[in-house]
């Protein structure tokens, strides 16, 4: 999987900016609502990626926002509120996935997964060692990347271009923190299959982030 050329670092539009620090006394009910609506697109994107179901994603986010508005006094800052919102959405997503179990439509996604494997195979020579041009290089300054909004835009795009099932297994493992056993059981996959999918996701995201962020950095200098 390669990073979409149009979306490379530098070509991205600036994110809608929300003030970082808000004086507690300045927080009226209206500004809380505004603040929370500011997070809505991101929460929705997260829930949609996980659930592949727009209606269920809307429900999860709506319930999280309503719960947040009820308990709003407890949150002194934007950061705590956001973490809390994501935690509620995360719990709703897990409940939903557990309930729904294995009713996941996979058929049309198989080809995308095969395409990803083909792209991965192309990084190697006949003997399955790295071909010199595609040999991975260490990523510089990961801490710095985490602090940049543009990095997170690149990360989200890389997630979005993953095949749905691949993205879901990856996110269950790395975002929701579920053990592989539980993921396999929930999605009715064998352990071997789960491992293959996680490897595919990591390899694909690694490649995408190398091209979309870390490699772009090196090439610029």
């Amino acid at each position, binding site marked *: 999987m390669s990073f979409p050329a149009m979306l490379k670092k530098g070509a991205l539009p600036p994110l809608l900016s929300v003030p*970082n620090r808000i004086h507690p006394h300045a927080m009226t009910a209206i500004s809380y609502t505004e603040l929370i609506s500011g997070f809505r697109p991101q929460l929705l994107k997260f829930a949609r990626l996980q659930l592949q179901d727009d209606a269920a994603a809307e429900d999860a986010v709506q319930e999280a926002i309503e719960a947040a508005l009820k308990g709003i006094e407890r949150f002194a800052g934007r950061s705590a509120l*956001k973490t809390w919102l994501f935690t509620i959405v995360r719990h709703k997503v897990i409940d939903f996935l557990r309930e729904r179990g294995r009713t996941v439509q996979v058929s049309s996604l198989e080809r995308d997964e095969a395409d990803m494997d083909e792209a991965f195979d192309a990084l190697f020579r006949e003997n*399955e060692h790295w071909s010199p041009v595609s040999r991975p290089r260490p990523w510089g300054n*990961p801490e710095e990347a985490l602090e940049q909004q543009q990095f997170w835009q690149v990360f989200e795009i890389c997630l979005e271009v993953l095949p749905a099932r691949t993205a879901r297994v990856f996110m269950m493992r790395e975002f929701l923190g579920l053990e592989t056993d539980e993921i396999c059981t929930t999605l009715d996959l064998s352990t071997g299959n789960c491992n293959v999918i996680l490897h595919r996701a990591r390899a694909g995201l690694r490649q995408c*982030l190398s091209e979309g962020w870390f490699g772009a950095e090196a090439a610029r200098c």
Partner: protein
Amino acid sequence: MLTCKHTTRLLSEALDRPLGKREYLALRLHLLFCRGCRAFRQNIYVLRKVSRSFMGRDDGPN
């Protein structure tokens, strides 16, 4: 000797389960001689760190 492709699979699985002794030793040996796979390992470790901060991240200082 492991191939690089096989090594990437073990490096990924090492994030999800404890490797067996033989797997672990074969992996260590390969990494000793292969900087491409060492970089792959660093990249997917960073990927894990990035994913963990994705949920709780904020655009400002905490």
